[in-house]
């Protein structure tokens, strides 16, 4: 009987309006969050976009700098400034060789004869994208492992070999070719055996183990101080937009591809953030709408509610109907939203499975839905109880 009476106080359009707007808001919010979770793992697996945290930084080479090379080096102050940026986790330097390096083959070898001048650099092992057991050097060893950039091989195979009528070489073949390395400097020279042990996608340089270069610099270099022209920078969050601003402002070069990825991530995140913001606004509006409806209904039916109170109904009993109703409608809206999100997710995961390897990401749809439901129902419960109490309890 009480519910029959209270049902008459409702305006169906308001409740349906609330249900629909809440459904839309929650659907967008949860679908976007879940989409972010799913896509993030896909991107990090496919392109390393999100997990790639280190980039190589150099200075722009300009006409002016061609004649005054000092401009391409980083001085200690600049490195320190970079290190102090909030988005920078760590800065490491390329160590370069301060001695002459040349490579040549033995006359007796079964590979074509060659002789070339080379340069060596070293980076801390943590930055290497190549894993091989051969990557080590000990002071009494006369073997130096070398890593070259993968695109050197491409350059040779598809450019040089093609035009010179030379055979193309697979990675496997190249790693089997032994050659000699002669280092000279400080009035001394020494010949080592060497071969290529790996190819790097990331670091565009001819790399030797750090241990070797440190030893060789100590013995064969006549200059004490090494000049630094390239840095390895670790970021806390590579999608931080301050990174781009900083490098642009200082005219530093970073790997173009990394730059593109950072841009993509930036727009991707901004887009998702915008959608999330819209979803939150829709939810807030729907909640504000139902709270306004609540006030309207209570004001319009103040006499009915007061009379109920006068004939012996407690504010708790009077409020129960409205509390149950708002909880029920909220529940229905959120369950519909969860079903909708699950369908949407199923749809896009299906599409993804055609393009990428299957990934198993945690499903946050239900936990987020339950969380929103609990927050809203709790909010309505408290606010309704307060409003009805305020309405009926006589002011003294």
């Amino acid at each position, binding site marked *: *009987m*009480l519910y*029959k*009476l209270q049902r*008459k106080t409702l305006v169906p359009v308001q409740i349906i309006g609330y249900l629909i707007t809440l459904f839309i808001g929650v659907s967008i919010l949860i679908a976007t969050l879940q989409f972010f979770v799913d896509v993030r793992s896909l991107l990090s697996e496919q392109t390393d976009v999100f997990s790639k945290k280190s980039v190589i930084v150099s200075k722009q080479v300009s006409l002016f700098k061609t004649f005054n090379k000092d401009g391409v080096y980083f001085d200690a102050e600049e490195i320190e400034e970079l290190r102090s940026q909030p988005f920078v986790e760590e800065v490491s330097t390329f160590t370069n060789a301060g001695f002459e390096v040349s490579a040549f083959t033995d006359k007796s070898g079964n590979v074509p004869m060659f002789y070339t001048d080379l340069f060596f650099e070293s980076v801390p092992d943590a930055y290497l994208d190549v894993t091989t057991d051969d990557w080590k050097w000990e002071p009494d060893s006369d073997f130096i492992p070398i890593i070259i950039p993968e695109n050197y091989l491409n350059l040779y195979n598809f450019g040089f070999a093609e035009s010179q009528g030379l055979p193309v070489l697979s990675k496997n073949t190249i790693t089997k070719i032994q050659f000699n390395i002669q280092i000279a400097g400080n009035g001394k020279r020494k010949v080592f055996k060497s071969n290529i042990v790996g190819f790097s996608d990331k670091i565009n340089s001819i790399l030797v183990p750090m241990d070797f270069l440190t030893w060789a610099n100590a013995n064969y270099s006549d200059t004490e101080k090494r000049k630094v022209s390239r840095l390895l920078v670790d970021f806390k969050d590579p999608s931080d937009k301050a990174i781009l601003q900083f490098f642009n402002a200082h005219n530093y070069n970073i790997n173009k591809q990394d730059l593109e990825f950072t841009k993509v991530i930036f727009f991707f995140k901004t887009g998702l953030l915008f959608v999330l913001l819209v979803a939150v606004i829709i939810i807030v509006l729907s909640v504000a709408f139902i709270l306004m409806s609540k006030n309207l209904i209570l004001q319009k039916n103040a006499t*009915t509610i007061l*009379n109920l*109170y*006068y*004939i*012996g*109904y*407690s504010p708790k009993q009077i409020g129960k109907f409205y509390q149950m109703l708002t909880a029920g409608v909220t529940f229905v809206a959120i369950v519909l939203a969860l079903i909708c999100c699950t369908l949407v997710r199923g749809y896009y995961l299906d599409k993804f499975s055609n393009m990428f390897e299957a990934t198993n990401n945690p499903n946050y749809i239900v936990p987020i839905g339950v969380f929103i439901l609990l927050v809203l129902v709790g909010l309505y419960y408290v606010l309704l109880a307060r409003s009805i109490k305020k309405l009926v309890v*006589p*002011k*003294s």
Partner: protein
Amino acid sequence: MSETEVQVSDIFLKEEVLFEKGQQYLVVAHSGHGKTSILNIIYGSNTAYQGAVNYVTTPPLKSPFEVRKSHLSYVFQDFKLFTDLSLFENIWLKNVLTHHKTKAEIEELIDKVQLLHKKDALVKNLSLGQRQRVAIVRALCQPFDFILLDEPFSHLDTENIHLVANLITDELKANNAGLIHTSLDGDTFFNYDKVLSL
């Protein structure tokens, strides 16, 4: 009422006024002298006064709503009926709080006040006199120690007044309850133990 309006009477500005269960009180006053106010104060729906209203019950009250559910019944001057509900629904809405009477007993009461044929009519379609009788029947559908009657017969003819007065008297006896009746002038519908004037 503001303080300046309150005059010394049998109730207002007294140190203590005691209403005893089983006794019948008539409160007489002209319009605007606070008859409804005094009933509302007793009922707990008016708290704009200085002093205290104490309900002496055994066992002690668990919550203030207990008073309205089981100790005080009130026939409001403006009825406080729900016009969108039917006559019977209005009474049932009160009865479900305590399940004091059965459906048959309620129908019998409605029949006694000659409204059974209107049982399912919406209250908004009833006349003032009919509404007044519904309000009285509703007030009888709960256990009570006192029934508060605020000019309950203002829209009734003498025949109907005797009819409902007898009904109320029966219920008073059944509940061993007291009566506080406000009226513009004295009447003889009940056997009053005490007449108070405001």
